[in-house]
């Protein structure tokens, strides 16, 4: 494309060639890209100030080495993994359950149309949601293992605390999108505030609620597979101990099992959501 001859202010004659953007937009775009590239280069320099390039150059050999050690996977290790897998599924399911139970009141307090006070309680509920969302479940697990000791309970609580933000956010958005006319119809019958919630809002958000719960359950299965790395139980514990003793065929088996579990749980969650919605 040739540059156009258009004067951006008030063109006396229009250019004969159509262009995608005005010259000013093109200039702004170029400056935007230039700034991004400059920022990228600067960040790259800062980030790699202490990088040992010897190790980086060595990476392909390392990768080939680990790869050859991992193959073939040690399938005889599978029966030993069934108990940790059951633990992992429990962490995810019980964690989702706990998270949802805590998230529902938070969501009702955070939604603009059901909160008792937009000045005081709504910002607090929103803060709870943001705080829970910004801290990953692995960090929650790290804290909880230090506080209540290693084990499944730390994993369950970590998953639950992390789920509050996700479920709370999606649920309060669903509550805010409910049809106001149904609420008015129910209040016209003389319903109290709680009855309005129960008969006008809850039936409207029920499908969204189950969809969000299944979606979060699926994510929680993924996250609970690695919680064992910091000592919170499940299949991650086996992964950590196998890596520590450099038993690469066992690591490969565990990774395959995790991959299979994730795919199956995603399939289940997609089927259930499809059936509900």
């Amino acid at each position: 494309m040739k540059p156009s001859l258009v004067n951006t202010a008030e063109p006396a004659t229009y250019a004969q060639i159509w262009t995608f953007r005005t010259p000013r937009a093109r200039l702004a775009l170029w400056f935007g890209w230039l700034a991004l590239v400059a920022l990228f280069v600067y960040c790259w320099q800062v980030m790699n100030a202490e990088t040992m390039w010897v190790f980086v150059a060595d990476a392909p050999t390392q990768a080939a080495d680990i790869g050859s050690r991992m193959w073939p996977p040690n399938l005889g290790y599978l029966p030993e993994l069934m108990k940790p897998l059951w633990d992992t599924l429990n962490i995810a399911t019980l964690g989702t359950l706990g998270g949802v139970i805590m998230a529902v009141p938070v969501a009702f307090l955070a939604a603009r149309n059901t909160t008792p006070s937009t000045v005081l309680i709504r910002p607090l509920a929103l803060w709870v949601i943001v705080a829970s969302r910004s801290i990953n479940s692995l960090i929650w697990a790290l804290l909880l293992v230090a506080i209540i000791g290693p084990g499944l309970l730390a994993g369950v609580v970590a998953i639950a605390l992390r789920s509050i933000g996700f479920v709370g956010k999606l649920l309060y958005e669903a509550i805010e999108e409910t049809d106001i006319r149904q609420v008015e119809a129910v209040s016209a019958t003389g319903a109290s505030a709680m009855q309005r919630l129960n008969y006008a809002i809850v039936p409207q958000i029920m499908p969204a609620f189950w969809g969000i719960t299944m979606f979060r359950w699926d994510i929680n299965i993924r996250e609970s597979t690695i919680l064992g790395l910091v000592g919170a139980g499940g299949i991650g514990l086996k992964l950590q101990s196998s890596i520590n003793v450099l038993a690469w065929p066992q690591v490969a088996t565990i990774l395959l099992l995790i991959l299979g579990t994730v795919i199956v749980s995603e399939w289940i969650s997609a089927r259930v959501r499809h059936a509900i919605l």
Partner: protein
Amino acid sequence: MSLETTYPMHWRRPPRMLRDRRWRLVVQGAALVYLVLAVGSLDIEWSRVVEGLARGQRFVEGFLQPDFTSRWGDIRQGLIESLTMTLTATVVGVLISVPIGIGGARNLVPAPVYGVCRTIIAVSRSLQEVIIAIFLVAMFGFGPLAGFMTLSFASIGFIAKLLAEDIEECDMHQIEAVRATGASWWQVLHYAIQPQVMPRLIGLSMYRLDINFRESAVIGIVGAGGIGATLNTAIDRYEYDSAGAILLIVIVIVMLSEYGSSYLRRFLQ
């Protein structure tokens, strides 16, 4: 039999799901059995939990009175690593995922290319960041470069998948109109697809920037640099006030980036 039928005086809400009563009982029973089994296998040591509550209280106190100063050098270093890692990984991730996303759109490319691109997306999405980080740290050594590699790899699956879905949902009329002028494949991409998906792509990139920052706080635990390494050290030393300070910084940055990206998205639309 009398002709008078008694009508129920109270209305009962009909069940929304599982209309059949027997199925409802089966599902409820199974859920109950599972709950009993699952809670039974938790194996909680209550004495240890009670002992830990005091420590939990200290953590809450540390969170309420965060100590930014005594470990400020480490925190600053970790933050710089995390932020630079996040930006570079997002840029590289977006650059790689745009061609893969285009290749994963069924309405633009032949079937073999579609299959290859969708496979790359599936592989990248099904592996956890932390697991990738463990391997990349083993390959590239400790430090933010391994973290950068991890986050770039994880970004590919996320952005390419959503971009491909967005391209598939594009308005076909615009594509046909541009094609009718005799445009080549590249010109269709440039004049028909790109204007439709650009706002969404920018939104996705901002969202991924946000996710990458949060993840950068995690992958440090396995040695990939960033604020996560600092946090891990603080918790290992039982310095809950420093840990509280780090968590507060992470929360504030995530909040800022969330407000910033929602503002930017509104500005672009």
